[in-house]
């Protein structure tokens, strides 16, 4: 794979990851609004980020 192709793929993955993060955060926020136990939303969102970008 050429350097250019590699960079384009990397950008595409980044975009996908970003969209997934936003989608999941929005859904989590929506769920938090309906959550009777009022779960810690920061912790929820942090967990999403950590899941999407795991430790290497």
């Amino acid at each position, binding site marked *: 794979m050429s350097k250019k192709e590699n960079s384009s793929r990397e950008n595409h993955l980044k975009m996908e990851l970003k*969209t997934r993060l936003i989608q999941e955060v929005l859904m989590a926020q*929506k769920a938090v*609004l309906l959550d009777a*136990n009022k779960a810690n939303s*920061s912790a929820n969102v*942090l967990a999403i980020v950590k899941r999407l970008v795991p430790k290497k």
Partner: protein
Amino acid sequence: MKLKLLKVRDFRQFRGEQSLEISCPRSSSRGVLTLVHGEMGHGKTTLLNAFRWCLHGRSGISDRFSGPAEIINSHVLEFDDNARAEVHLHFEHDGEPIELKRSLTKVQQLSTRKDDYDGHLVLTVTSALTGSTLIHEGDAAQDYVNAIMPQAICELLFFDGEGINKLATKDENPKMGESVRTLLGLKLVESAIKILGGNVLVTLRKDDRESSTGDDRQFKDLRDKKYAELLQINDKKAIDERERAALLVEIEAYAADLKRKAGAKALQVVRENAESRMAEAQKVFLHNEDKLKKLISEKGYVLFSSKLIADGLEITSNLRKDRKIPAPIMTDFIKELIVAQKCICGGSLKPGSLEHDSVSSLLNVAKDAKFHDAAASLERTIGSIRNALAGTRKEFSDLIELCVVKRAEIVQSRLAIDKVAEQLDALGDPDIDAIERNKAQAEEKRIRLERILAASDRDIYILGEEIADLDRKIKEAMKKSAGNSYAAERVALVEEALIELKETLRRDTDSILPELEKMVNESFSRMVEIPGRVRLTSTPSKKEDEIHIHVSLETQIADGLWREDNANTGKRQCLSLAFISSLVGYAKKRSENTAGFMKAVSGDSYPMVMDAPFANLDPAAKKRFAPQLGGLATQVIAMLNSNHYDEEFEKGLETAPGIVGQRYVLVHHYRKLPDHGLRSIRIAGKDHPIMQLDEGLGYEWSEIRKIS
């Protein structure tokens, strides 16, 4: 939200348990409409408020509902110590069945504490996936309801038609703006921005710094510093952009105002010209008047001496005729002749001779030398006066003529000014200079802001480049130190997500009004045949999370020139309905058509519950409006009395076959039937009683009776 069932128990005049099944269409537009027919006092408004009370307690009750604290049926309250009112609302949200129950005991109703007088709320939600049920109570249940149907939206969608016209006024703006943002999912985006940009980012940055070793740490510190600067500039830029947007609206408003007042401006120019002409004429007039006064004081006698001259001339002429003014004769010469007794003709002048007497008589005539001098002087004076008269007279008449001309000019200008003043009075004689001054000031401010924004853009670009460079350096340093880059990646991911969310919020906020305005116009023109256009304008706000919306109707007064219509109540009701239905439609459209992550959060399907919505529409408008009812929302519950519903209305409904789902009448049970009022109403060709005599009962009550 899809409504299914409303069940009331001892709620106001609804004694015992009664229910209203709500038409729940499977396919679009078929059976969308649930109609409840009832006369005044039979419980239409009570039913509307049963929905609102169930969802939001006492604060949810409409303003026009009398005795909002008296929820429990009065007869039950009086005779039963365990009296309680209940309202159950069954609906579906996001595919999950939800049952909501609010109950209120006698003790709670009498309490002054909100926690008590709002009663007890229980919400049961059944999972669409597992079928398991989850029960929320009290505040938790209320939070759940607020998330699905915030009170501001509830007030928009569950409305009292008599008062709905108030929506199309400036007073309701903040509420409408808030509802729009919630309905369209923008509030959710805001909360996501808040949480990502707050604790989450702070924690991730801390992790990142702690996981760093060696060279990358200093790059990261620098990068964080640069990023903080970038955020600061971005925030400032956002404020400046909002201010610029506000200024543009202000400038546009000034320009529109000037355009509207162009007629007045032209008249004001005419007035100014006339005033300056009058001032000039007045100046010339006064100058000439002064000259005239001076002329009169100095030479006026000349003008008034014509008779004197004539008299003088007559006197001298008579004197000459009478030979009393001979040729100048020296008295001494005559005396010498008499003394010498010798005339110049050689004759003797002896005393007693005829010649002597004759020459002596000449002495009588010429004896007074002063008389001669006076006569000569009179003649000279008369001569000089005659000479002066011609010049003075011309000067005088020239001045008089000039004064007359100027006076005419003054009068003419005054008339023109008065006429223009009258026309300007009719137009309110606006202070156009002030508007022009304000516009110029706003323009100046805008230009200043443009410069500041350009500088911000430049700084943002430079910082962006610096950050990208530092990112590269961090990556390289981390590679070298074989460290983990995941922490930095997490930070970068959240930062990019934040930028995208903020951009989406800004873009959506900008696009909402024009798109919604188009829909409101379409909806309004379907409802009524009123020439004009609906305008949605937002009042600029420096607070990012606010849009103030003003709904107004404009009529065209000239090519390209529109003026806000002083719409009557009926028009404003239609306007408000068009706005609400468009908002509901827009939310639904967004949830169906929006691409990307907004799809999941953009709006939903909402029902509409309206009490007596057509009171101020004429019969033709009602007939035209009837088939449109089904298109207002995915579910519509309309409560109608005989003023709203008649054969024409039914004919209107028939033009949209299938839109009516279930029908109900509200039957009022009396201990003694009243002397007046309708006993029955004719619905779709069939008579239905709406009053019933229950002599044995000690109370009156209303019944919800299903008729189809």
